[in-house]
């Protein structure tokens, strides 16, 4: 299991690695597990933290039980609203839940897939582990090889601008 574990740019507070075809984010919060669980599963609390900085999240639908649907609308000043949605697959409070995490990309249709969140006591703190299941090692490797080569992407940007000029 640990043999395939490769660091993917962990930060000071968040451990990010791939394990086979999974992309994993781990962070330990200084809070009891009950609070952390609620933050993920209570529609009143989700809008207070969900989404990157500078975004707002509106919970449009959130039926936290197996087969229940969820839908969050993410707003930001510099783009149109993006809707994230999916279905709860497994719920095991306050230990774990699995859902599908989907969003539509223009011209490409729905993207995303299953994601598992687990919550574990670490003394009086809580470790959250979010695992995105990428489907295949090839998909993950390909995506990471491209997405994380920052310099290369800038090159693509410049090239694109150049091509646009004709």
């Amino acid at each position, binding site marked *: 299991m640990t043999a395939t574990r490769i660091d993917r*740019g962990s*930060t000071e*507070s*968040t451990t*990010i690695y791939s394990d086979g075809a999974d*992309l994993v*984010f781990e*962070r330990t*919060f*200084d*809070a009891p597990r*009950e*609070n*952390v669980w609620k*933050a993920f599963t209570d529609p009143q*609390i989700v809008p*207070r*933290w*969900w*989404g*990157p*900085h500078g975004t707002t999240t509106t919970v449009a639908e959130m039926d936290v039980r197996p087969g229940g649907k969820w839908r969050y609308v993410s707003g930001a000043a510099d783009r149109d609203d993006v809707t994230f949605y999916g279905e709860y697959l497994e719920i095991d409070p306050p230990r774990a839940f699995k859902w599908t*995490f989907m969003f539509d*990309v223009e011209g*490409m*249709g*729905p*993207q*995303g*897939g*299953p*994601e598992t969140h687990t919550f574990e006591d670490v003394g009086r703190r809580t470790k*959250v582990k*979010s695992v*995105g*299941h*990428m*489907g*295949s090692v*090839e*998909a993950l*490797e*390909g*995506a*990471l*090889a*491209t*997405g*994380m080569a920052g310099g*290369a*992407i800038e*090159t*693509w*940007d410049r*090239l*694109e601008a150049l*091509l646009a000029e004709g």
Partner: protein
Amino acid sequence: MQIQPDELSTTFAALADPTRRAILARLAEGEATVTELAAPFDMSLPGISKHLKVLQRAGLIEQGRQAQWRPCRLKPERLRDVADWLGQYRRHWEESFERLDAYLQDLQDTQRPGKGDER
């Protein structure tokens, strides 16, 4: 995230090969012929052509029509899609976690003095 069988997954599969990534890197500097692309590799022209077909099917490159001189050109849009997608996913969880951390701290500060509503 499991990628649904669609264009993006074809792209991911095409990118999973180091030779094909090297070809893309070369094309980022400008268009090139198949012979020029084959030069750095210990590989036959048909071998390189196979890789180019995969890249073409994945929407990552395009090839000119002329019979003799068929320069390959990068199509950066698709690569941007892939990079954007993964970058956004990473950023989504990293920054959400930061905000969650701040929220939980606030919550604990308000719970600590009262402590009455703890279950």
